[in-house]
């Protein structure tokens, strides 16, 4: 998941998500970077709406006690 977290740092900081940006972050973390994965991620982001993906998460966390039986 490091690659995704790195992209999220850039997103969260309002920066553009670029190959160089992700690489720099991962290298700073001491992670050995796989260039093809970085490229694949950045390329995939063309079709991924991060804001929406995050939105889904907050939903999942937040509401929906619905099905959850009390302990």
């Amino acid at each position: 998941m490091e690659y995704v977290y790195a992209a999220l740092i850039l997103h969260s900081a309002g920066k553009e998500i670029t190959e160089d940006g992700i690489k720099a972050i991962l290298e700073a973390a001491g992670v050995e970077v796989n260039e093809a994965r970085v490229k694949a991620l950045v390329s995939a982001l063309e079709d991924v709406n991060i804001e929406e993906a995050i939105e889904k998460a907050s939903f999942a966390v937040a509401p929906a006690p619905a099905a959850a039986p009390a302990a």
Partner: protein
Amino acid sequence: MAAVRGAVPQWKLKDVEELKELMKNYQTIGIVSFRGVPAGQMQKIRRELRDKVKIKVVKNTLIEKAIEEAEEFESLKEFLGDQVAFVASDMNPFKLFKELEKTKEPSPLKPNQVSPVDVVVEKGPTSFPPGPVLGDLQMGGLPAAIEKGKIVIKDTVTVVRAGEVVKPEVAKALSLLEIKPVKLGLDTRVLMEKGIVFTPEDLAIDVEAVSGQFTEAYTKALNLAVNSAYVIPETAEILIAKAFMNAKNLAVNAGLPVKEAIPEILGKAYSEMMAIASLLPEEALDEDLLA
């Protein structure tokens, strides 16, 4: 290739030079297989990709020679073999891969090829009137018969399994039925950009999956922040709510008479009483419970 004997003909040298030019001048290069692609489809592919992708069909040996002359391309060697073409483009590997995938069309099996898939023919009517086609279908192993003036397939059968050689009779029967069980076109073996090798596994991006990873990553980050009580704008409200709920839960479950929890405490006591009462016979209940 030690097998090369004597001087390489001039026209072949020209091909090698051309390949080297492509490698030098394009962002992404690669090797694709086009085994089984009919000439007509190949022409169509060339026509459609003309402005985006250079496609050069030359012998493996020539590609190999071109590769050998530039060290950074060495790793492409293992992807040679069979009927391959060399591609070059200024698209990034992911876009190029998508374009190449688009060239694939449903196609019939050819006589004597090894089928990559199981081919199942469903039972049901065909569009053929009685005639010699009946014999062709039967020769291909299909349970064909005449019913109500039409040729029908009486049972669902698997005519060839993945890995089996397709008998010419079977290929003919399938083509009569216009069954196209395989997709043929330019099949990416490898792409390379700036020395980085991309296999089809790297290139086939599942947008849903990536989106899911972002959801998961955010959820995990939020969980971590909340569960470690790290207060940031994203968690502040959640943590306040959680702290309040913890306090309220404690108050209710321990029967602490604080104002915020009193209605719940009373409700809890009442519903407990009702739960017990629901298990009791009438004679154990007082009037207000019987009402």
